[in-house]
């Protein structure tokens, strides 16, 4: 078991998410930063969708009760093993009794703890990702025990990787959303000429942005939305839907983030700046 001494600000178990229940209103969930999950699971030679811990802003304190191997990716929240600093994107051996803790948030917003074999949590509707009411708990809680397989010997084929640093990336790659054509030329220009600011209202469901790009009065019928859909409200504000976002919506879908852009967005926090950049996908 991995014993939760302190849960941190917002720490959840996440895998690649829950698909095939969106038509019943169930969000996809899963890691906000899929690149970071992919990297830890690759280094640990786990399946890419193995469950990891998603740690937000302030890290938890975790006690290992069995030997295993771990790897941390994503944001830099000054991780330490028995209070000795450890590197991101590097596999470490831990033994029973080791304590993992975190310190100052240096860069990014969400960090990922991968474990050899993945966390062994019961899947509900095909995924271990925490999202009430699908799962009972919203986050991990103090004194909880998270099970993982005991691994005493593992020789990673690649013990460490250098990743491209996307934590401070300003540009968010997008394609046109279904209601793009309803925007005025001025609005289209503003979308790509404005430095947008992440508002205080940002979480796993959605990131609301501060700036307005002008009103619209078009009313559409509720229709499907996706993680990474940028919605525009009638007053001209933008909402970027994230992994726990609702599955349908009635606001205009003006842009769509790429998978990579969702990961970049997931590392942004209140008051951070971003700029949309158009890419071609087809």
């Amino acid at each position, binding site marked *: 078991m991995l014993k939760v001494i302190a849960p941190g600000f917002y720490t959840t178990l996440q895998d690649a998410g829950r698909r095939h229940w969106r038509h019943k*209103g169930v969000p996809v969930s899963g890691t906000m930063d899929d690149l970071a999950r992919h990297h830890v699971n690759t280094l640990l030679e786990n399946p890419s969708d193995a469950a990891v811990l998603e740690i937000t802003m302030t890290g938890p304190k975790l006690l290992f009760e069995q030997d295993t191997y771990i790897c941390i990716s994503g944001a830099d929240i000054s991780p330490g093993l028995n209070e000795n600093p450890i590197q991101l994107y590097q596999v470490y051996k831990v033994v029973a009794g080791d304590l993992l803790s975190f310190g100052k948030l240096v860069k990014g917003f969400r960090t990922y703890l991968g474990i050899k074999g993945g966390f062994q949590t019961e899947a509900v509707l095909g995924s271990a990702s925490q999202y009430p009411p699908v799962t009972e708990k919203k986050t991990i809680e103090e004194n909880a025990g998270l099970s993982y397989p005991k691994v005493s010997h593992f020789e990673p084929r690649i013990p460490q990787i250098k990743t491209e640093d996307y934590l401070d990336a300003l540009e968010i790659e997008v394609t046109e959303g279904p209601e793009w054509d309803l925007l005025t030329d001025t609005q289209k220009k503003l979308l790509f000429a404005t430095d947008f600011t992440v508002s205080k209202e940002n979480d796993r469901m959605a990131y609301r942005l501060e700036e307005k790009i002008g009103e619209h009065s078009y009313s559409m019928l509720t229709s499907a939305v996706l993680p990474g859909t940028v919605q525009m409200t009638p007053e001209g504000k933008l909402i970027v839907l994230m992994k726990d976002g609702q599955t349908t919506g009635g606001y205009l879908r003006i842009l769509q983030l790429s998978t990579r852009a969702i990961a970049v967005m997931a590392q942004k926090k209140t008051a951070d700046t971003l700029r949309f950049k158009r890419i071609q996908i087809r």
Partner: protein
Amino acid sequence: MSQFPITLKSFGKTAILIEWPRQVDEAVLKHILTYQHFLKTKLEDSWEMIPAYNSLTLINSYADFDYQKMRDQLFSWYEMPKPELHLKQHLWKLPVCYDLEFGIDLEAVAEALLLPIPEVIRKHTSHVYTVYGIGFLPGFMYLGGLPNALEIKRKKTPRLRVAKGSVGLAGKQTGVYPQDSPGGWNIIGRCPVPLFNPHAADPCFASVGDKIQFIPIERAEYELHKIEAEVGIYTPEKEEFHA
């Protein structure tokens, strides 16, 4: 079946949006569901399909696809003559207790609509509603077909917490909150039947295209159904119909 024109749009790298004329219309919904049914026989299981009002969104998160090819294929399949299809659908009879303790806005609603409370309840329970979409929350049904006499604006200040099972009115819509949630609808009653159960084979028994009718129940019956639902022996009454 006469055809409505459709439009296709690329929706990110993983999805395709198919749209029908922008109207809340049973005939449009029937076309969407018929086409969805047909596509299930043609497309691989990796495709998710989300119908709502006048759209059908196809999502494939697992494999890249050639949008132009898919687009041409989808158009040609749509234009192919298909045999008249009898979709198996259900009418669900959901019990609702309109006790004032649950229907916290019922008095205000009756006053605003210039109707006595029993008349609000009678009108709400004598219509059959159509499920045009499921979303917003797991198991939340967008219901169409509210009688004009029950149209009322949503509350000016949304409540921070509306109780699970609350039945509300807002604009042209009525619906049931499947879980505790913030919300601005006018609450007129409460339904003891859980609309979302993640441990059931199908977490939400209703599907888009199904019908819903509310059945008024007394407080004692509400408590009974609630206990039955909690221990897992209550299933809502249903009738099968063919669209």
